[in-house]
C-alpha cells in the first residue's frame, strides 16, 4: 500500500518535471516550478489560501478546546449528550453542511426569511452576503462546523483518559482555575491539540470541494485554482498542475513539520507518562 502511495507520489513528481510522454513531453526541467514561483497571481492566491487555512484551523482549535474543557467529564449532566452531539458533524461529509448552509444562510435563506419575518431586516437585500463572499465566511463556517467538533472529539477522547490528578495538585499549590488550565491542563493536551490543528490545516489548505461550491471567484483559493486547471482537460497543462500540487504539498508538510517542531518547545512538548 505504501508502495502504491509512493509510486503515485513519484509519478506526480516526474510529471511535474515536465516528463509526460503521452503528450510528447519528454524533457525534464524545473521550469514549471520556477514559473509558478514567479507567477504573481499564483503567489497571491497561495498567500491568501495560507492565511485562510491558518485562520480557520486556529479558530477551530480555539473553539474546540474551549468547548472540550467546558464540558469535561466531571460534570455529568451535560457531558454525555454534549459528546454525542459533537460527534454528529464529524460523521457528515462537508458537502452536507454546504447544502444546509445554502438553505440557511443565502440571502434568501431561512435565516434571512426569519429575520425579515420578525422585522429585523427589511428585505433579503439587507442580509449580508455570507456565501460566495469576499471573506470566505461561508467556507469558514462550513469548516468550523466540521472541525470544531473534530477537535472536541479528539480532545475528549484524550481527556477521558486523563484523570484530574494534576489539576488537583496544581490547585493545591495555589494556582487559580485559570492558571491550572493554562499551565497544566492545556499543556498536557498540547500534543493532541497540535495534531488536530495540523490535520485541520492540511485539509483546509488542500481540499477543493467546499471552496469550489462556496468560494468567491475574485478571491480564488489555491485548491480551486488548481482544480479549474485540471477540469479544463488540457493535458499539456498536467505537468504544471502537478507542480502546483507538489508546491502546495511540500509547503504543507514543511508547515506541519515546523508546527510539530515548535510544539516540542511549547509547554507540554515533553510528554512524559502520566
Amino acid at each position: 500500500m505504501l508502495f502504491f502511495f509512493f509510486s503515485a507520489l513519484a509519478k506526480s513528481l516526474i510529471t511535474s518535471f515536465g516528463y509526460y510522454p503521452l503528450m510528447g513531453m519528454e524533457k525534464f526541467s524545473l521550469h514549471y516550478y520556477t514559473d509558478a514561483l514567479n507567477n504573481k497571481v499564483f503567489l497571491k492566491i497561495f498567500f491568501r489560501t495560507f492565511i485562510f487555512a491558518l485562520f480557520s484551523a486556529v479558530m477551530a482549535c480555539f473553539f474546540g478546546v474551549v468547548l472540550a474543557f467546558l464540558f469535561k467529564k466531571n460534570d455529568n449532566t451535560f457531558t454525555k449528550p454534549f459528546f454525542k452531539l459533537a460527534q454528529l458533524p464529524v460523521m457528515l461529509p462537508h458537502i452536507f453542511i454546504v447544502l444546509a448552509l445554502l438553505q440557511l444562510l443565502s440571502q434568501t435563506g431561512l435565516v434571512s426569511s426569519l429575520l425579515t419575518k420578525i422585522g429585523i431586516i427589511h428585505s433579503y437585500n439587507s442580509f449580508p452576503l455570507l456565501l460566495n463572499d469576499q471573506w470566505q465566511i461561508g467556507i469558514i463556517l462550513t469548516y468550523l462546523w466540521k472541525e470544531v467538533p473534530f477537535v472536541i472529539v479528539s480532545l475528549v477522547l484524550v481527556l477521558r483518559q486523563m484523570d484530574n490528578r494534576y489539576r488537583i495538585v496544581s490547585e493545591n499549590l495555589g494556582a487559580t482555575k485559570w492558571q491550572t488550565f493554562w499551565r497544566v491542563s492545556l499543556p498536557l493536551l498540547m500534543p493532541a491539540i497540535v495534531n488536530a490543528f495540523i490535520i485541520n490545516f492540511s485539509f483546509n489548505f488542500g481540499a477543493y470541494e467546499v471552496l469550489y461550491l462556496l468560494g468567491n471567484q475574485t478571491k480564488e483559493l489555491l485548491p480551486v485554482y488548481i482544480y479549474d486547471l485540471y477540469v479544463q482537460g488540457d493535458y499539456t497543462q498536467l505537468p504544471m498542475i502537478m507542480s502546483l500540487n507538489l508546491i502546495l504539498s511540500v509547503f504543507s508538510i514543511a508547515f506541519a513539520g515546523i508546527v510539530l517542531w515548535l510544539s516540542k518547545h511549547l509547554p507540554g512538548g515533553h510528554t512524559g507518562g502520566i
Partner: protein
Amino acid sequence: MYHLDNISQKKGNTQILRGINLNIDENSIFAILGPSGSGKTTLLNILAGIDRPTDGNFLNEDGQVEKGIMVFQDYRLFPHMTVFQNITFGLKVKKAKNSEIKQRAENIMKTMGISELINRYPDELSGGQQQRVALARALILNPKLLLMDEPFSSLDEALRIEMLDFVKELQRKFQLTIIFVTHYKTEAYMLSNKVAILINGQIMQVDAPKKLESNPQNFDVAKFLGQANFIEGSLSSDNFSSPVYSGKVNVVAEEGKLYLPFSGQLQLDQTDYPAFKGNVVEKKWMGSNLERVTIKINQETVYCDLASESVSENQVYQFYFSKLPVVF
C-alpha cells in the same frame, strides 16, 4: 490550633474514616502513624481540601477552612515540566519575582541534592529523586500549613535524616504547622513529639513516642507498633498463665494476650520480674548493634532484640521483664 471535628469518610461501601477528632497545635509538627490502608491518605486529602468528608470538618482557630499545601504520596510531578518548573510552580502562580524564584529554587535544590537535575523531566528521574522534587515543590512555598504524605518513603536513611533535619529547621524558622503521615514509626518519632495512631479509620491514641511504645492503649496499637510477641494464655483477675510465663500482669484489655515487645521489655539483667528460662536458637544481626534473638521456651518461640554479642546460640539464659508485663 487546628480542629478536626468528627471527620468521617465513606467511599463506595467502604467506611474509611470513622469520626476523627483531633486538635493540632499551630507551629508544631504533628505525625499521623498508621498501617497500610488505615486511611492516612484519605484523612490528609480532607485536610488539604482535596476531598470533601461525608461528615465533619476541619477548621483553624478562627473557625475557617484553611487549605494546606500537600506533598503527595505518589509525587504527582507535572510530567510536562522540568524539575525546575515543577519546583517553582507554586511561586510562579503566586507571581513571585523571577529573581526571588530563582534564588529560592536554587537553595532548596541544593539542600535536596537535586541541583544537577534542574533541567530533567520527571520521567528521567529515579524514584527517590522524584520524591525529593515533590518535597521541594511544597517546601519552597513555606506554607503555613504543610501536609506531607509519606514524604520520605523512597529515600535512603542518610538522605532521610538530612531531610528530616531540614524540615525541622524549616518548621522552626518559618513557624509552620506540619501534619505528616507515615507508616514508619522511627520517622514519626524523630520528627515529632506528638504522634497520633490511626488504625482502621480511627484515632487510637495520641501520645509522645516513648509513651506510645511503653503504654500502647490497646491491642491494635500494640500490635501495630509491633515487633512484639503476643503470647496466648488464660487470665483470671490479674494472674496470667501460659507455657511461657505465668504470674502477675498488668491487664489493659481482655483479649488475653501477653504483650512482649521485641525490645525494651526483656533483658538479661536481673529485675524484680523474672520472666522465663529459654534456649537461644538463632541470632540475626540487625544493624545498629542489635541482634534479633530467637528464643525457645518449651514449644513456644519468642523474639527479642538484644545488644550484639550479649548471648550465644544454643545456650539457655534466664530472662527478666524490665517491668510488670502487660496483657491485652
